[in-house]
């Protein structure tokens, strides 16, 4: 196999874009992250009817009460932008907004959210026009593997709703519920400060 060292002068994001085919191949062989297949199957007859409003659309579902909001989004609505990292409220990869407030969707049941307004990463862009925060993440190279990025961005949007004054120290503290194993924190903070919390 060829040495995948990036040619000189190329930025990391350019390199990633050009080698995306091999990245996809790697993903397939590496399989899903731990816990991603852990969705409880609904025993026959145990489904509860629930209407979930996600990104402005009502979805009528029949769900086992055990299904978390995270699993409902990913496995029942095919909204896989929201990621499952730790599945225990430690990493923040599953962050979504419920009624405008950021929460960890892995630690709440889908059936608890009838009547709530749920916003996920899929609802941020307007067609091909990225949300300014998404654009800021790209501009500042604020991700590497990208697994935590949806949660980081949704957490930032939720943070902006909380009316903090967004200086570097505040952003670091207020984004502490989102872990980045690649260690992109300085770039994430740069992206947030550049964006400034005005959507």
């Amino acid at each position, binding site marked *: 196999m060829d040495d995948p060292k990036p040619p000189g002068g190329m930025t990391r994001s350019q390199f990633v874009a050009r080698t995306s085919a091999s990245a996809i191949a790697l993903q397939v062989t590496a399989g899903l992250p731990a816990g991603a297949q852990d969705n409880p199957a609904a025993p026959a007859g*145990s489904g509860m009817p629930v209407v979930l409003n996600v990104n402005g659309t009502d979805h009528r579902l029949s769900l086992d*009460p055990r299904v978390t909001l995270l699993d409902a989004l990913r496995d029942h609505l095919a909204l896989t932008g929201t990621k499952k990292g730790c599945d225990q*409220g430690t990493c923040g990869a599953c962050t979504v907004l419920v009624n405008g407030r950021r*929460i960890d969707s892995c*630690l*709440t049941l889908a*059936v608890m959210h009838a009547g709530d307004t749920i916003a996920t990463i899929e609802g941020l862009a307007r067609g091909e026009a990225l949300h300014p925060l998404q654009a800021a993440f790209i501009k500042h190279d604020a991700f590497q593997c990208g697994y935590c990025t949806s949660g980081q961005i949704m957490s930032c949007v939720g943070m902006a709703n909380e009316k903090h004054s967004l200086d570097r120290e505040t952003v670091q503290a*207020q984004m*502490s519920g989102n872990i980045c194993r690649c260690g992109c924190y300085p770039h994430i903070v740069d992206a947030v400060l550049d964006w400034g919390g005005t959507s």
Partner: protein
Amino acid sequence: MNPFHYTRVEDSPAAIAAIGHDGRARFVAGGTNILDLMKIYVEEPTLLVDINRLPLATIEQRGDSVLIGALARMSDVATDATVRRLFPMVASALEASASPQLRNMASMGGNLMQRTRCSYFRDTATPCNKRAPGSGCGALGGENRMNAVLGTSEHCIATHASDVAVPLMALDAVLHVAGAHGTRDVPLRDFYLLPGNAPQIETVLVHGELITGISVPVVPFASRSTYLKVRDRAHYEFALASAAVALDITGGMIQNARIALGGVATIPWRAREAERMLVNAPATRASFQRAAEAALSGAHGHGKNDYKIVLAKRTLVRALEMVATS
């Protein structure tokens, strides 16, 4: 998690009726603790009663106390103007807790009812008298760096994990509780039970009782207070040691003091002897060090957590100095 039934209720009587006599039925509010424990089979409820729609989320001053609804979220209490003005140490304890996402979810009642983070309690493959009475304590002689040095017994050294319970203990908060036989008020100082020989019984609540609110008496000098939390990283981590401190100082002399410790005890730990030693003492480091010695005088380490005795003293001294110079 195991299969369970789910029901949603709109008021306290319906919640209490729904929970009934099934000892494995549980209330769920934020869900951040119980769902976590259900995923690791530490909790296996037969029924979850969703109480999120109960009208118990308000925060309001009523005469000489502030009533915090049991369903007020941690983030709402932390940002409440009245709480911030009257009880800075309550707000700072909440801001030092968990992550912003979890603070948006977790209720105040649930926070007070949260279970220990002791790794043996959370691992069903290990012994734990709190989870499986009579099975032994893995933490004694085991990995006990995070465990308690105050209020322990030969059966359990698990630390109480709540931050906000620490200043609430210092402020003599009172819990309002509803049950099948009516309502009652329980002072927080009487609410938590030391592990003794029954660490599985953690509070005086009986099955089916529901915390509906928390009254925090307005202690005038508590407007001069802080919560200092020492931990392995700056944010989003449980306490190794913490101190909630309020001081009433006139002319350099301490008139009154409230002190409670977190992260080091099996229950949120009021340090009354340390408070008494500070009354009529000068607000100096020497006084604070004497008080800290008194606060930890009954502490016992278990090997890997011996450092907590020293750390808790230093945490308390620093918290007292912070308030005295504020």
